[in-house]
């Protein structure tokens, strides 16, 4: 109560005139002195003496006034405000020091905050839904299966979803979503002439999806339960804002417009705002359709038939080196109940589990714990097992999306994130070390000032606090600059990421409150980290010599040098760690370029994908389309060659058709029935792609359905069939597949991919004989790299002319074809080398500072040496030796650190051991060279020491 009144009075004191109160107090004090003097006079003391006595009795007038003033004012932080003001004055007085310190630190902080904002966006930021922590995804896990199990745990059958939704659970609601990538056609309408055909990602969702997630429409309306009641009866769709703006030119009459999803008509009823991109983190959903329409989007036509069951089981492979194999399928019930699962002899399979294509998310009410909801869900699970044929009770686990992201994401992403974070923290530490060194230099310059303050009675803690306040101010200014710049650098980084180039992937790196909090904490920590050493040293100043003019403080100087040397060695070893990391990634990138390279040059390559699957064309029409496409594409100006292939990744087989090859006339055994991957290509495919054949010839226009059936196999399959790949050429092989066997003439042998330890066996057949697949990729080789864009545009126009209905998507030019792993490698290499060089530059700056200081301290010694006749080279060697000693120590510690970190990095390296001697040697060389550079100026200055001058100073 009383404290409050005093506070109030002091707050009011802020507004009343200070000068007036001072005048009043002065008058009061004067009266006091006069009264006292008068009393002394009355006792017979002479006037002057009386006055002196009165003053003595009063004590310090100034101190009283000061104390009074302090009592009047509101001072929330005591002397802190004073420290701040003084610190600011000191910093402004030496602008170059302040500038260098602030810049160095902001670079260090910026490196960290930028990485943090990326890591935050990738690993921690929840989906843009209402109360994301309440929304949990349901997983059905078992102890079996390992890797294979994880992929299936999140996918449930419609029947499972239905019974879960009907069961009594603690969820406010359960939603189901099936992620699809389907052909999307938007025909021109009366209001818009713009049309679109392509393939896009969509979600087929239960009617409660948007209400449960708390997502509201940008235009029109989103689904309700009424849009999802009867199978096949709700041809409505909503589309994403990004799709609407980018592909449909933000058509204002979009609501009510007809679009075709997977070839079936849907009417657009609303638009989802771009902030919500669906339940698949980082991937943009373009459209949403009701779950009841899944038959129109590619699901089994009778999906709602309760008797149909999707199942999955995991079987142990016969080859112990291979992973568990998952077997999936759909079963129809028989009268006798669940069917027997046939097992191949010698195969060991786990139980049959319910499985489907639906992800299930639920929102738990505010007070309900995850464990409570989980155990209750498992309590109803027994009932579910009975209802389905699964002969194993499901074991449900619940996870918020953010958590499953950590598991779901390839551990590579997480590892890269952590490494980048670690690297940037090292850079930040080096920056702190640098500024600490700067401050130490400054502290020795300020030694006399500090000594005066100490000798006038300032407490050592008080002085240390003043210095810490100054470091804190530098850190906060630097942190502020870094935070502002982070908004820009995080955007730049998100653009540089290879993820950003893949269509349909979207990650927003904009810093949020979490990132800003981290940045603020980091700045605070920065101030403490680099400010502690100088503050600590300032409390150990030896007063007497420091006050003497011209003192170089040699004894304490030596100790200070030790501290500074330790700092520099620390900086050097940290940068060695970052540099070794960068070196390893660069070397690994080089190795990967050759091993991960597609085996052909991509710089003049153009490709685009087509999918006629949704158009219900006859096979002959599909064949005719691709035949026309290839023939006419060859005559596009600037095109050297054109062909088609059914595998979008060139050479990796698609489709799950069961087929195997055997040598004509050789009896088959069970062991010889090894499935082969089939690739269908157009004529001159290998020539168009520039893929060299190991032997034989490419397919030609003359390999058509009237000519003899031909095939090209790869070296691995040739070796398996004939023992030696040289023997395979010209032989005939039997292809066993539905509908019947076929005799093929082997005309060519392709090379195995070099990076596979057990290369897959590949059969390539001509599209004009086998018939084209409905989805094919057109590949074009442009005459020159500058033509690729024009070629792509002409090919797109050509396809539109041939058939405007055909969905065309995924147009890729030149380097878009590179393995995405290469992109990740390149990014890691780029980030780590940027960090490495930043660290190196700062460490060298630190080394330079220390060497320069050491030369100053040893001026006298060097002078004596030179007076005694030491040649300049000796003096230079003296300085260089000292620098190299520090670097050597830094290298040793850094190498040890890098060696400890090797296991973590090893997993990210391709064809490169983390202890690659070349990298370590290169780092040592680089560091030695830069050390000599950093020592050059101080060494030169050492040789310019004038012996006479230095000795006179003595």
């Amino acid at each position, binding site marked *: 109560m009383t404290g409050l009144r005093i506070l109030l009075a002091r707050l009011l004191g802020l507004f009343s005139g200070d000068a007036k109160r001072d005048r009043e107090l002065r008058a009061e004090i004067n*009266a*006091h002195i*006069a*009264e006292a003097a008068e009393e002394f006079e009355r006792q017979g003391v002479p006037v002057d003496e009386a006055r002196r006595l009165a003053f003595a009795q009063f004590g310090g007038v100034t101190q009283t006034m000061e104390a*009074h003033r302090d009592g009047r004012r509101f001072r929330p932080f005591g002397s802190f405000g004073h420290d701040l003001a003084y610190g600011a004055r000191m910093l402004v007085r030496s602008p170059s020091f302040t500038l260098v310190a602030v810049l160095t630190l902001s670079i260090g902080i910026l490196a960290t905050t930028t990485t943090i904002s990326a890591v935050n966006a990738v690993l921690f930021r929840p989906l843009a839904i209402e109360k994301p922590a309440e929304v949990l995804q349901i997983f059905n896990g078992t102890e079996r299966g390992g890797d294979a199990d994880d992929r299936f745990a999140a996918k449930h059958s419609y029947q499972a979803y239905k019974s879960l939704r009907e069961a009594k659970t603690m969820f406010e609601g359960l939603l189901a979503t099936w992620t699809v990538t389907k052909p999307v056609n938007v025909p021109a309408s009366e209001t818009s002439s713009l049309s679109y055909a392509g393939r896009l990602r969509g979600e087929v969702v239960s009617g409660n999806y948007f209400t449960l997630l708390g997502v509201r429409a940008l235009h029109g309306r989103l689904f309700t339960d009424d849009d999802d009641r009867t199978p096949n009866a709700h041809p409505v769709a909503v589309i994403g804002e990004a799709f609407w703006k980018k592909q449909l030119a933000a058509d204002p009459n979009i609501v009510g417009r007809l679009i075709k999803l997977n070839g079936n008509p849907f009417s657009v009823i609303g638009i989802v705002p771009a902030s919500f991109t669906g339940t698949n983190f980082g991937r943009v959903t373009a459209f949403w359709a009701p779950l009841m329409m899944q038959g129109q989007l590619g699901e089994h036509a009778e999906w709602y038939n309760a008797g149909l069951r999707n199942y999955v089981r995991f079987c142990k492979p016969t080859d112990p080196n291979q992973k568990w194999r998952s077997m999936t399928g759909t079963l129809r019930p028989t009268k006798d109940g669940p069917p027997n699962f046939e097992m191949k002899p010698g195969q060991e399979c786990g139980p049959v589990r319910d499985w489907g294509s639906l992800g299930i998310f639920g929102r738990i009410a505010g007070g309900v714990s995850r464990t409570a909801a989980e155990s209750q869900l498992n309590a109803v699970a027994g009932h579910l097992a009975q209802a389905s044929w699964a002969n194993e009770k499901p074991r449900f686990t619940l996870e918020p999306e953010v958590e499953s992201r950590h598991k779901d994401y390839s551990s590579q992403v997480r590892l890269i994130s952590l490494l980048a974070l670690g690297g940037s923290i090292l850079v930040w530490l080096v920056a702190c070390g640098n500024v600490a060194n700067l401050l130490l230099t400054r502290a020795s310059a300020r030694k006399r000032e500090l000594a005066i303050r100490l000798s006038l009675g300032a407490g050592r803690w008080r002085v240390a606090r003043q210095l810490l306040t100054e470091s804190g101010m530098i850190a906060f200014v630097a942190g502020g600059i870094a935070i502002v710049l982070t908004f820009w650098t995080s955007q730049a980084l998100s653009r540089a990421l290879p993820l950003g180039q893949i269509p349909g992937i979207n990650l927003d790196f904009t810093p949020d409150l979490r990132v800003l909090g981290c940045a603020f904490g980091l700045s605070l920590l920065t101030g403490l980290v680099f400010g502690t050493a100088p503050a600590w040293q300032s409390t150990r100043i030896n007063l007497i010599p420091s006050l003497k003019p011209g003192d170089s403080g040699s004894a304490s100087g030596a100790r200070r040098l030790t501290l500074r040397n330790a700092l520099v060695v620390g900086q050097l070893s940290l940068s060695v760690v970052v540099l070794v990391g960068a070196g390893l990634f660069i070397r690994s990138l080089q190795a990967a370029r050759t091993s991960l390279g597609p085996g052909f040059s991509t710089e003049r390559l153009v490709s685009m994908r087509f999918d006629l699957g949704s158009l219900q064309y006859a096979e002959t029409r599909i064949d005719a389309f691709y035949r026309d496409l290839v023939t006419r594409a060859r005559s596009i100006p600037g095109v050297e060659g054109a062909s088609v292939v059914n595998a979008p990744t060139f050479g990796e087989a698609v489709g799950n058709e069961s087929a195997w090859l055997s040598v004509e006339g050789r009896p088959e055994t069970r062991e010889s029935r090894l499935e082969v991957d089939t690739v269908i290509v157009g004529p001159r495919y290998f020539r168009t792609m520039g893929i060299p054949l190991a032997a034989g010839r490419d397919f030609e226009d003359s390999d058509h359905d009237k000519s003899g059936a031909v095939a090209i196999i790869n070296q691995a399959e040739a070796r398996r069939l004939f023992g030696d790949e040289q023997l395979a050429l010209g032989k005939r092989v039997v292809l066993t597949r539905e509908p019947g066997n076929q005799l093929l003439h082997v005309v060519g042998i392709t090379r195995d991919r070099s990076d596979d330890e057990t290369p897959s066996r590949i059969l390539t057949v001509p599209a004009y004989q086998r018939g084209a697949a409905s989805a094919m990729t057109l590949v074009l080789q442009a005459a020159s790299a500058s033509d690729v864009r024009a070629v792509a545009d002409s090919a797109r126009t050509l396809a539109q002319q041939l058939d405007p209905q055909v969905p065309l998507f995924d147009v890729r030019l030149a380097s878009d074809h590179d393995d995405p792993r290469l992109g990740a490698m390149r990014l890691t290499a780029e980030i780590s080398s940027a960090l490495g060089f930043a660290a190196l530059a700062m460490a060298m700056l630190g080394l330079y500072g220390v060497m320069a200081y050491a030369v100053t301290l040893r001026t006298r010694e060097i002078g004596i040496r030179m007076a005694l006749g030491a040649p300049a080279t000796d003096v230079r060697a003296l300085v260089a030796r000292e620098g190299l000693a520090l670097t050597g120590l830094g290298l040793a510690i850094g190498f040890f650190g890098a060696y400890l970190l090797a296991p973590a990095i090893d997993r990210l390296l391709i064809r490169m051991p983390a202890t690659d001697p070349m990298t370590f040697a290169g780092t040592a060389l680089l560091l030695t060279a830069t050390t000599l550079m950093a020592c050059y100026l101080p060494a030169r200055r050492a040789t310019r020491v004038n012996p006479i001058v230095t000795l006179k100073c003595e």
Partner: protein
Amino acid sequence: MNDKRTDVLYGSLGLIILKTLEALGPLHGYRIARRIEQISGDHLALNQGTLYPALLKLEQAGWIRSSWGESDSGRAVKIYALTRSGRKRLATDEAAWQHATGIVARFFKIQDEGS
């Protein structure tokens, strides 16, 4: 300095001022200082200046109030007077003080008996 003189016990100066004002009625700063010196028999080492921040604090707390008046010799001085809440405060503080010193005194007594 006289060895017998001791510093004002921490926190007790405010109490001493309040008690002085209660005993003698409204006074100006110099009179308060003199009175404290007289009562303590010059045993208190009081810089008279330290009185003024203490007076300020008491006034901010609302226990005394001040107004400009005249001293006996006709000088313009600030005269401090006890307020009602100051009187109340003095009563409780005095009781607490007696209580506390009483307890401490008892300890010294025990020691005396023991020796």
